[in-house]
């Protein structure tokens, strides 16, 4: 299963419309934890092994972050960490992930979160599936192993769909699928002794040219939202009084 670590979005502050990332800790994506929980449950029900695969990008404490996945229950971790891969676009991440999956050998199921907690592009799982030539289902809210296949349920518009993919396959999950477990102290202690491999791009037969960006971010600034940010204090009745008075003054109620 694939995890992405990203700057904790709750900790990103904005200064002069610019996001401030210094000192923002990296953590596993929330949906990545759902995907990991799915993988652990499938392993416990159907056997196999859960490998947590991640690309370090600019996370300099990647080993610590990945330990969270091992503590939750992944059997092994693989980290792709290379200075030449510190900033990657989605196509490049997919290239690295697909190469790492191929190096790992027979992977039956690739599990991802439907998007990352920071940028949520949702591109990497689809790109990896295409690179590896495997079928995919996105947005699964139920995943179960059936003979030689994986069966997924998802909610799409006005329909509930039940879909089956022959293995190997790629699946992304949504947050409703489960409640990711919180590892016990014992599991956290044991995580450090689980096998963790660190691969470079050359281990994967890739070079910087293979990861040349196909797109660039021209600017990334906070939206100029002119909001008032008035917070009412006091008892519920006092808050309600001040709040409704404000709505009346704004002309949105009482006219």
């Amino acid at each position, binding site marked *: 299963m694939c995890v992405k670590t990203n700057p904790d*979005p709750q900790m*990103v502050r*904005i200064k002069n*419309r610019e*996001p401030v990332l210094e000192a923002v800790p990296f953590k596993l994506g929330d949906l990545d934890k759902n995907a990991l929980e799915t993988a652990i449950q499938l392993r416990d029900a159907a056997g196999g092994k859960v490998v947590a695969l991640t690309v370090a990008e600019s996370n300099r404490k990647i080993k610590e972050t990945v330990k969270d996945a091992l503590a939750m229950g992944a059997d092994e971790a693989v980290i792709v960490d290379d200075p030449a891969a510190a900033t990657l676009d*989605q*196509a490049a991440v*997919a290239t690295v992930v697909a190469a790492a999956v191929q190096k790992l050998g027979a992977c039956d199921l690739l599990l991802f979160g439907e998007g990352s*907690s*920071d*940028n*949520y*592009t*949702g*591109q990497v799982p*689809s*790109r990896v*599936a*295409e690179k590896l030539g*495997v*079928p*995919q*289902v996105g947005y699964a809210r139920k995943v179960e192993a059936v003979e030689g296949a994986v069966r997924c349920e998802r*909610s799409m*518009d006005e*329909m*509930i*769909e*039940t879909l*089956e993919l*022959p293995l190997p*396959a790629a699946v*992304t999950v949504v*947050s*409703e699928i489960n409640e990711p477990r919180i590892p016990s102290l014992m599991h956290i202690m044991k995580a450090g002794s689980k096998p963790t491999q660190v691969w470079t791009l050359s281990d994967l037969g890739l070079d910087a040219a293979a990861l040349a*960006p*196909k*797109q660039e*971010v*021209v600017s*990334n*600034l*906070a*939206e100029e939202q002119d909001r008032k*940010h*008035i*917070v*009412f*204090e006091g008892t*519920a*009745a006092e*808050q*309600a009084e001040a*709040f409704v008075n*404000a*709505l*009346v003054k*704004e002309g*949105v*109620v009482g006219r």
Partner: protein
Amino acid sequence: MADLLVYSEKIGTACELAAKGREFAQALGLGVSAAALGTGAAAQAAELGAAGADRVFVGEDQALEGWPADSVAAALAQIVAEADAKVVLLGSTRRGKELAGRLAEKLGAGAVTDVNGLELEDGAFIAARYAFAGATVAREKVGSDVKVFAVMPKTFSAEDATAGAGAVVTPALQLATGMKVVERRAKEGDTVSLDAAPRIVGVGRGFGKKEDLALGDQLAEALEGIVGCTKSLADFQWLGEDRIIGLSGAKTAPDLYLSVGVSGQVQHTVGVSAAKLIAAINKDKEAPIFQMADYGIVGDLYEVVPAVIERLKAV
């Protein structure tokens, strides 16, 4: 002549893309193609033509049933080649977003998903999307020969579209899918339209159980508004899908958006950022929703909402 290609499994979204796509295509000296895929897709050709498509590529292959990402991407890649498309505009619906990465990879293309603003600057597309969970707006440029943009529904309007020739093309598509549809069943639920509502009460996971949503209904009633929700409440099947606000639901622009028990994840707030006035009731003073609110009440919704309802009665 090279083309700009538009596709969405949602005909309304596809028409929006065709209408705006025609403007872009004219500025760039491109033709406009549309793809209509899936069972009964041929019936969409006239509408796509009226919305601006010169050519409509129709694919009704069995492998497109249920719109699997693998076969739809394969169909579009073949159409891109036949139409010599340089730009592909997709709808950033769930299916469209899933498709975008797969298609882009097939085409060796860069792609931007969840685009909520697309414009030409000196002949180059600049696509805007939220980043850092909505804290910022990233403006991105795609450098590959073919460019893929998945644009959120209702970013463009199909009104006042200039019609194209709408010539139907039936390409010989080579398609297969690994996805088997075991079952598709309709959800139960009510139907409402949030698009034009002047006042919306947005409910989120701060509500502990389905029955408690009655409080949200009462608040909406007191405001003469409509209840909308975050996606998770629809996923719990507490409310119908048509009440979802955000990336996977309605993009609204009410006079008042009052959120109750909504944390303010970007997938939701992108659907209300155009509201004239945003207010929030949430017990967590750090909730991101307060960063985009005009008025906020930090408190227990089970105490605050009845007090607000009571006070509204006196207006």
